[in-house]
């Protein structure tokens, strides 16, 4: 059982494009109630598998795994690694139901719950990472990298979930459009290395949103 008892509100506020000063008044009250509702509806789950990694030229190749990792960004991310953890996490279907319900009842609450639910998946991923790092002590890890980042395509979700047997293990599926359901779910790769990894380059360089990003315009980063 994974226990999530709080959600990073600052993260949720960031999803809402809210700066800290708005964390007051009516929004703060909503945050309290919505956090409680999201935590109640949450059925946090994660699952992961480790695969040894080789490089065929620049291209990373997973051993005993039908997944092909296309694109230069994931190759750069995994450079120097000898293994990959494929990880999936979900808030569960109850959170989707809560957000649907709130959209009928009170859209402002729905928007806040939606942001909190997004932040909650990050909490679950963090818990998973703690477990992974304990299990693979003495190793070095990259940050999480997800389909949709850079040029890593989203259409590998179906294969990822098949590899993880994710429907059976955590109730996570892919819809006909290649989107994860329940909606508040994430898949990610974590590179594993025996040796220290050099500091990662700025994620913004490969981000699809680099031209329109509000944070980048302000000289900041979204932190992903």
């Amino acid at each position: 059982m994974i226990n999530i008892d709080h959600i990073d509100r600052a993260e949720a506020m960031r999803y809402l494009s809210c700066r800290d000063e708005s964390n007051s008044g009516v929004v703060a009250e909503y945050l309290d109630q919505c956090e409680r509702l999201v935590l109640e509806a949450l059925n946090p789950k994660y699952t992961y598998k480790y695969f040894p990694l080789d490089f065929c030229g620049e291209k990373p190749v997973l051993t005993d795994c039908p997944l092909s990792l296309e694109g230069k960004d994931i190759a750069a991310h995994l450079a120097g690694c000898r293994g990959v953890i494929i990880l999936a996490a979900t808030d569960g279907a109850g959170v989707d139901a809560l957000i649907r319900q709130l959209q009928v009842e009170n859209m402002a609450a729905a928007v806040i719950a939606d942001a909190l639910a997004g932040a909650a998946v990050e909490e679950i991923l963090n818990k998973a990472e703690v477990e992974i790092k304990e299990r693979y002590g003495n190793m070095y890890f990259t940050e999480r990298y997800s389909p949709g980042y850079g040029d890593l395509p989203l259409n590998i979700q179906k294969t990822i979930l098949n590899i993880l047997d994710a429907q059976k293990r955590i109730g996570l599926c892919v819809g006909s459009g290649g989107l994860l359901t329940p909606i508040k779910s994430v898949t990610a790769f974590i590179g594993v290395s025996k040796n220290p990894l050099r500091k990662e380059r700025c994620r913004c360089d490969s981000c699809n949103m680099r031209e329109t990003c509000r944070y980048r315009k302000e000289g900041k980063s979204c932190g992903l």
Partner: protein
Amino acid sequence: MDFKSLLQEDGFILLDGGMGTMLQANGLVPGDIPEIMNVTHPELIESIHKSYLDAGSMVVYTNTFGANRSKLEGSGHTVSELIGAGAAIARKAVSSASHKAYTALDLGPVGQLLEPTGSLSFEEAYNIFKEQIIAGADTDLIVIETMSDLYETKAALLAAKENSDKPVICTMTFEESGRTFTGCSVSAMAMTLEGLGADAVGVNCSLGPDGLYDILDELASSVSIPIAAKPNAGLPNPETGAYNTTPEEFARQTARLSEIGVKIFGGCCGTSPEFIRLLAKELEGLRPIKREVRKHSAVCTPAKTVVIDQPRIIGERINPTGKKCFKEALMNNDIDYILGQAIEQVRAGADILDVNVGLPDIDEKEMMVRTVKAIQGVTDLPLQIDSTIPEVLEAALRVYNGKPIVNSVNGEEKSLSVILPIVKKYGAAVVGLTLDENGIPKTADERFAIAQRILDRAMKIGIPKEDVFIDCLTLTASAEQDAVMETVKAVHRVKNELGLRTVLGVSNISFGLPNRELVNCNFLQMCLTNGLDLPIINPNAALMTGAVRAYKLLTGIDRNSMDYIRAYKDVSFSSSATPKDSSQSDGSKSGETMNLSYAIENGLKGEAGKITAELLKTTDPMDIVNEMLIPALDKAGDDFEAGRIFLPQLILSAGAAQSAFEAIKNNMSGDKTVSKGKVVLATVKNDIHDIGKNIVKVLLENYGFEVIDLGRDVEHQAVVDAAIEHDVRLVGLSALMTTTLKDMEATVKLLHENNVNCKIVVGGAVLTPEYAEKIGADFYAKDAKETVDIARRVYGVT
């Protein structure tokens, strides 16, 4: 002996163990499609079947768990090819076995989540299973296994029952919490699947045998059909995938499940023939026990079971009779209005919601199906399907997720002969009205006699007594005063002499009288005291809901007054715009007169409506709109753009403005309108992330636009059709993911190809102005506020 007869015999039935486990041990790579081995390695599959048969299995599952249209897409193989091959291999293995054995067509989940969480419709899921069932005709029984969604299980079971005459075993997979991943409880699974005619139910996969003990124990006390258990070999190691229970432990623990009444045994992930061989040995010398099955009246959705062991409130508000706004909503396909009515009743304390969408000029069947699905997407309260048309009832029963109530059958022969078989087929409960060809009898005795007749007929076709609820019918006290006590007496007799649950529409009693609620409330109390279980009332009427709560408190049903106290401490979003009472949060304004712009700025919904109603006495409606409402909204919009307020606050302000608009709308005569124009909105095909589109919708409506909301995952053509049908000047499309942008592009293209005379605005997280231009959209909107600005520009309104 066929398998159905075997189920009736007094022995255990031994299934096989894991197939995937065996295949992986033989070189199957995770992520590959195991069913393809039916054609590439048939001898391997056959040898696995044979080793299970040698271990003592009486049933082998075909290697067809994931052989469905959805999972095989792009594999180069067809459903009929792989299932046909799988069935033939199993048949061959069984025919050479040393003991009588059976082949089971194995059906696992489709692999996509069904609506409302996913986008796969119930009907599509049904067709996917139907194709598999037809392809697997040469098997002896059907197993539906590893299900976590009750809705999907229902689609599969219905497909099995309607396209074959084989016995069906349904097993679902549960977490330690006693729920499935989708939140389905054991009780909901039990009553729904038994009602739909499953021949056996049980649990597979999930956990090890010990972990399933309590779940199976609850199941065993809830159904009278045989129970199956096919546990995993304990829990897997996340690193290696190896399971942690030895064959000996597994066999011992699994055999122990016989003491709670499990009759059918096998193994799932991590088990091998050795597990089954030892299990067979453990079961030797044991006999299935006779189970005590709890008989009670109950209805459910996957997440909520309502046991009718005490008064339960049926909310009556989803019904157009005598409600102008509701009728209008039905005519305009405004499902959100109906959902609002549903949630309001949930918050007010309803236990079950009656759903009636009957109106002469609409397609009631289509509307009913849509409404039932939509309501089940936002609340887990069970529903009472209310229609006079059998086809409407049947269509609703098909798509309902769980066990509902049918409202209603009556003592007329043609009603009994048409309605009861439908109720039986779908395993519903039914309301029986005590009237017949001769109308409503005057006396309690005559109504009792009809109740008796309805019960006899229901039981004759196999509807259990517990599922028949009798409505002794309320007549209007002002017109037929003497009939009041006849109704009360009839309730008493039906409850006490027939032992049936009773249901009654209460509000009708006071029709034509002043101070109706007083009469309703007293009549309700009289009926509750005389045995009424299911009052149909308006739960939003605090006095009525309170009367039921007080009754439960006073009769000791509500132990320690827990529910009563909780009910009156609750705070909900719907009670006011802000979670806390608004008077607390705007201390600065207390004592002063609040004006409309203040109310809008601070998102005070209730106040905005009240102030507007007050203003309407002295001010022209259009002046209120143009001089107060729009400027206040504009200010909120400007503040949002400048980063002074943020999305939730903007939505709250807009919500307050809408309640002002509504006050104005109610005040205006029929032909006048405050509508600024119609806009079609859709989240494009294949995309199910629709919250952004819904925010746009709310804002547009708040600004006075009429929105035709096509929902999410919308076919390209449907957008074109709606734009033409409603003759709109603006269509808004949203897409969240890079993968669905192509559908946005295709929709835009189709609008252009059809020369639809409208502008197109697009938005969504990954969209850019450049991309919007490239695909031929007229506008890119970076957020909901900008969409409103664009709509105002397109319609030339301020």
